[in-house]
C-alpha cells in the first residue's frame, strides 16, 4: 500500500515540506543524467524555499541535460524523529532518493546559526561528518553563500567552499567532476584540481598554525593550492542567467512571491554591513531586462506579488524607468509590487504612490543609530531631518505605522547614542500629531526593532569587540526604562544568539569541535527560539576548553592574521583599516556614485564601477 515514506507523511505536521511535486519542480530520469546535485538549505522548508539563490542555481543546473539538481531542507523535529526511527536517510524532494548516493551535496550558508543544521543534515543523510572520513569520490560536499567568506568553523566538515557568486563556478565544478568520474580520479585528486578553479577554496589544502596567545600565526597552502583565493563574480550582471520559473510551493513560505534582482553590491558602505562589502563591486541589471524577468516569472508561477530585491532598492539608478514599465501589467494582472530595503534619504511621494497603488503594507526604515555622531561612525549617511521628512511623506500618504530598525552595542556607543534611539522614535510620534493632514481618527504606531551589533569579517568593524552579553542586556533594560511613550513599541533580540553569531562569524578552525559537540548536545535548529539551547552551546565550549569571548569580545590589532585573510573578496584590508580609522574620527565616507574611495573591488571587473 503506502511506502515507508508515505506512512511518515501521514504522521507529520505539514507533510508538504517533504513530498515534493510542487509546480515547476524538475523530475528527470536518473538513468539519463550523469551528475546529481543535492541543494541543501540548512533550515526548514518555509525558510529555504524563500531563498533566491537556491531558485537560481536549481534552474541553472537543471537546464543542463545531463545534470539533475534536487532540493533538500532540514526536516522539522517530528519528521527527523520518524526518519531516525525508521532508518530513512535524508532524501532529495524530487526523486526521494538518499542524497548520500548523489555526486555532489551543496549547502548554502546564509547565517551562522544554521551551522548545526548542516551537521545534522549530513548525519541524517548518512554521510560521514568529517572531510577526513570520506574516501570515495562521491559525494563531494560543498558550501557557498555569504558565510563562506569565513568558512573556517566548518572547515572540518565541508570539502570545498565556493567564494562569491555561483552562476559560473558551480557548473565548472560539475564539469570537472564529470571528468573525474570518467578518468577515475581519487577524491583527493578532484579536490586538488578543483582548488585551481578561481573562487574555489579547499580548506584541507591549507595548514593553520597558532601563536601562544591563541591568534593565528600563518595559513600555509599545500599541494599547489593558491596562497590567496579570490571570490568569483559575474562581470556583466545584465546577461547573467536568471530563471524563467520558480518552484511554487503549496505551503505558505516566508517569502512566497516572485523576485527580480535589481543589482548586486551596494554603493553605501555602512561599516557594520557585511553584505555591503562582500558583494562589491556594484553592478546593475537594465530596467528592460528586469521587467522581462518579472513578467515571465509572474506568468509561469501565477504569483500575485513581485519583490524588487537588492540591498538598497532606491539606489537602483533605473528605478523610475523600471516601475513605469512594470506598472501597466502588474496593475492589470493585480500583481502587488513589493519594494523592500528602501532608503530614508530618497523616498519620494512619487515613489510611495507607485508602491501603494496595488496594496498598502507597513513601512520599514533603518536609521540604524539614534544620534548623528553614531550614524557618522557607522557611515549610515542619513540625517534626522531625512528620517522625519520620510515619515512625514508616509503619514501624509495615509500610513499610521512605521517600523524603525536600530542596532545597539556599536563601537564607541555612549548612553547619549542609546537614548537617541528612543528620542528619534519620539520625534516621529510628535511629528505625526503635529501634522494637519494626518490620517483622521487614527493613532500612530512606531516600532523600534533593536538588534545587537555583531562584528563581521570583511567589514571595517572586523577588528572591533562585541559588547559582552551583560553590557547588551543592561543597555536593553536601560532603553526599555527610558521609553515613556505608549505609541512606541520596543522589540529587541536575544543576546545569546548575537553572541554565538559573533563567535562563529569571526571564528577559526578550532571551533569545529565546539560546533560538533553543540550538535551532539542536541542543537540543530538554532535559528528557532523554541529549539535554541544556549546551555548546550556553553557545555560544548567548556568541553573543548574554548572561551567564546576570545572570538566575540576581543579587539584585534590591524596586524593580526585573521582566519579569513587568505580569502579575497575584492575589498582590500588596507581599505577596511582606513575605514575603521575614519569611524574612530566620526567621519563618514561618501557613497560610491559620489566619489570612489578605492576599496579595491573594481579590480574584479577591471574598470571603474561608474
Amino acid at each position, binding site marked *: *500500500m503506502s511506502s515507508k515514506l508515505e506512512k511518515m507523511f501521514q504522521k507529520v505536521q505539514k507533510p*508538504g515540506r517533504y513530498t*515534493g511535486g*510542487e509546480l515547476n519542480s524538475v523530475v528527470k530520469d536518473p538513468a539519463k543524467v550523469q551528475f546529481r546535485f543535492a541543494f541543501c538549505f540548512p533550515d526548514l522548508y518555509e525558510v529555504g524555499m524563500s531563498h533566491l539563490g537556491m531558485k537560481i542555481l536549481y534552474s541553472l543546473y537543471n537546464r543542463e541535460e545531463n545534470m539533475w539538481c534536487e532540493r533538500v531542507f532540514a526536516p522539522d523535529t517530528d519528521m527527523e524523529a520518524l526518519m531516525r526511527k525508521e532508518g530513512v536517510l535524508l532524501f532529495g524532494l524530487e526523486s526521494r532518493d538518499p542524497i548520500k548516493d548523489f555526486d555532489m551535496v551543496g549547502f548554502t550558508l546564509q547565517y551562522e546559526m544554521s551551522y548545526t543544521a548542516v551537521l545534522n543534515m549530513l548525519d541524517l543523510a548518512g554521510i560521514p561528518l568529517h572531510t577526513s572520513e570520506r574516501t570515495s569520490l562521491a559525494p563531494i560536499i560543498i558550501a557557498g553563500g555569504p558565510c563562506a567568506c569565513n568558512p573556517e568553523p566548518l572547515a572540518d566538515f565541508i570539502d570545498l567552499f565556493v567564494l562569491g557568486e555561483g552562476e559560473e563556478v558551480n557548473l565548472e565544478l560539475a564539469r570537472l567532476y564529470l571528468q573525474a568520474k570518467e578518468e577515475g580520479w581519487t577524491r583527493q585528486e578532484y579536490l586538488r584540481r578543483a582548488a585551481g578553479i578561481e573562487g574555489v577554496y579547499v580548506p584541507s589544502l591549507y595548514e593553520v598554525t597558532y601563536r601562544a596567545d591563541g591568534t593565528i600565526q600563518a595559513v600555509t597552502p599545500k599541494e599547489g593550492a593558491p596562497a590567496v583565493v579570490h571570490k568569483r563574480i559575474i562581470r556583466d550582471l545584465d546577461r547573467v542567467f536568471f530563471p524563467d520559473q520558480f518552484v*511554487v510551493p*503549496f505551503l505558505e513560505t516566508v517569502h512566497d512571491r516572485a523576485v527580480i534582482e535589481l543589482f548586486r553590491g551596494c554603493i553605501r558602505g555602512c561599516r557594520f554591513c557585511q553584505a555591503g562589502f562582500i558583494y562589491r563591486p556594484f553592478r546593475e541589471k537594465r530596467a528592460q531586462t528586469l521587467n522581462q524577468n518579472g513578467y515571465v516569472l509572474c506568468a*509561469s508561477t*501565477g504569483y*500575485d506579488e513581485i519583490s524588487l530585491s537588492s540591498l538598497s532598492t532606491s539606489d537602483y539608478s533605473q528605478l523610475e524607468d523600471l516601475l513605469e514599465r512594470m506598472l501597466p501589467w502588474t496593475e492589470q494582472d*493585480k500583481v502587488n509590487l513589493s519594494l523592500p530595503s528602501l532608503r530614508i534619504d530618497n523616498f519620494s511621494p512619487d515613489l510611495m504612490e507607485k508602491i501603494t497603488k496595488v496594496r498598502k503594507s507597513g513601512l520599514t526604515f533603518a536609521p540604524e543609530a539614534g544620534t548623528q555622531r553614531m550614524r557618522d561612525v557607522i557611515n549610515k549617511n542619513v540625517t534626522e531631518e531625512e528620517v522625519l521628512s520620510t515619515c512625514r511623506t508616509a503619514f501624509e500618504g495615509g500610513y499610521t505605522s512605521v517600523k524603525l530598525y536600530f542596532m545597539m552595542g556599536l563601537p564607541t556607543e555612549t548612553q547619549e547614542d542609546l537614548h537617541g534611539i528612543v528620542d528619534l522614535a519620539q520625534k516621529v510620534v510628535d511629528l505625526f500629531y503635529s501634522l494637519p493632514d494626518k490620517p483622521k481618527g487614527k493613532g500612530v504606531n512606531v516600532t523600534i526593532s533593536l538588534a545587537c551589533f555583531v562584528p563581521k569579517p570583511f567589514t571595517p568593524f572586523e577588528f572591533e569587540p562585541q559588547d559582552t552579553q551583560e553590557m547588551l542586556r543592561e543597555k536593553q533594560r536601560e532603553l526599555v526604562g527610558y521609553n515613556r511613550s505608549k505609541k512606541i513599541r520596543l522589540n529587541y533580540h536575544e543576546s545569546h544568539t548575537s553572541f554565538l553569531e559573533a563567535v562563529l562569524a569571526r571564528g577559526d578552525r578550532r571551533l569545529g569541535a565546539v560546533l560538533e559537540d553543540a550538535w551532539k548536545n542536541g542543537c540543530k535548529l538554532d535559528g528557532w527560539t523554541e529549539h535554541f539551547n544556549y546551555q548546550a552551546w556553553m557545555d560544548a565550549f567548556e568541553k573543548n576548553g574554548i572561551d567564546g569571548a576570545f572570538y566575540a569580545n576581543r579587539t584585534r590589532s590591524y596586524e593580526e592574521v585573521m582566519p579569513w585573510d587568505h580569502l579575497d573578496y575584492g575589498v582590500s584590508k588596507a581599505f577596511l583599516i582606513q575605514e575603521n580609522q575614519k569611524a574612530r574620527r566620526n567621519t563618514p565616507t561618501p557613497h560610491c556614485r559620489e566619489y570612489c574611495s578605492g576599496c579595491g573591488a573594481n579590480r574584479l571587473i577591471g574598470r571603474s564601477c561608474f
Partner: protein
Amino acid sequence: MIPMRVFYTKTGTAKYISHLDINRCFQRAMKRAGIPLWYTEGFNPHAYLTFPLPLALGYESLCECVDFRLVEAMEPEEIVRRLNQVMPMGLSVQKAAEPVYPAREIAQAAYEIRLSLADTDGGRAQQILEAFFAQPEIFAMKRTKKGERQVSLKEHLHGLTMQADGGEVLLQLQMPAGNELNLTPTLVLDAFSQQTGMLIEDFSVVKTAVFTKDGKIFA
C-alpha cells in the same frame, strides 16, 4: 458575472495539499491559465474561490470541486484545457460548467477505503470489520468547535461493502457530508480502533462521489 464550477481529481502526492493551500494553488493556477476571474473589490482585491466540500488532508478524491465567477464568458472546454496545462502534478480538471445545485444541497459522500490491520491477514480483518459494523449501535466521538460530542454512526452509514484483498480490506461506504452533518472515514476508523482494540496499520481513503439530498450526483 458568470458562475462556474470546476470538478477536479486530487490524487497521489497532491493529497498532502491542505485545504487552505489548495485555495492558494487554484488562485495561482487560474492566473497562469488566464481565466477571466472576478475579483473582490476593496482594500485587498482577491479572486473569489469557494470550495463546496473541503477534503481532509491525506484523502484522495475523484470528485473535488471549486466555484468561482467569470467577468467574461469562456467556453467550459477552454477552461478545462487551459487549467490542465498549468496544474501541478496530482490535480487534474475533469469538467467545467455552470453550477446545477447550490453548495448547500450537498448531503452525502461516497468513499473507498483500503486498510490493513496489524498482524492480521485480509480475510481475518474482514471478519473483524464485519462484526464491528454488524453491531446494533456504533457511537463515535466527533470533535467540533464546541468541543466533543457523541454521534451515533450506525444509522448514517449506507451502502457498505467489504472485500478482502491480500493483506488488505477494501471498504466502500457512503455517509453524510456537507453543512448539516459531516462525518468522515477517519471518524469511523478511529471508533473501530478504539472499540475493538485493533491497530490499523495503514489506510488510504478516496472520495469517489458526492450526492445531493435527493440522491443525485452533485453537479
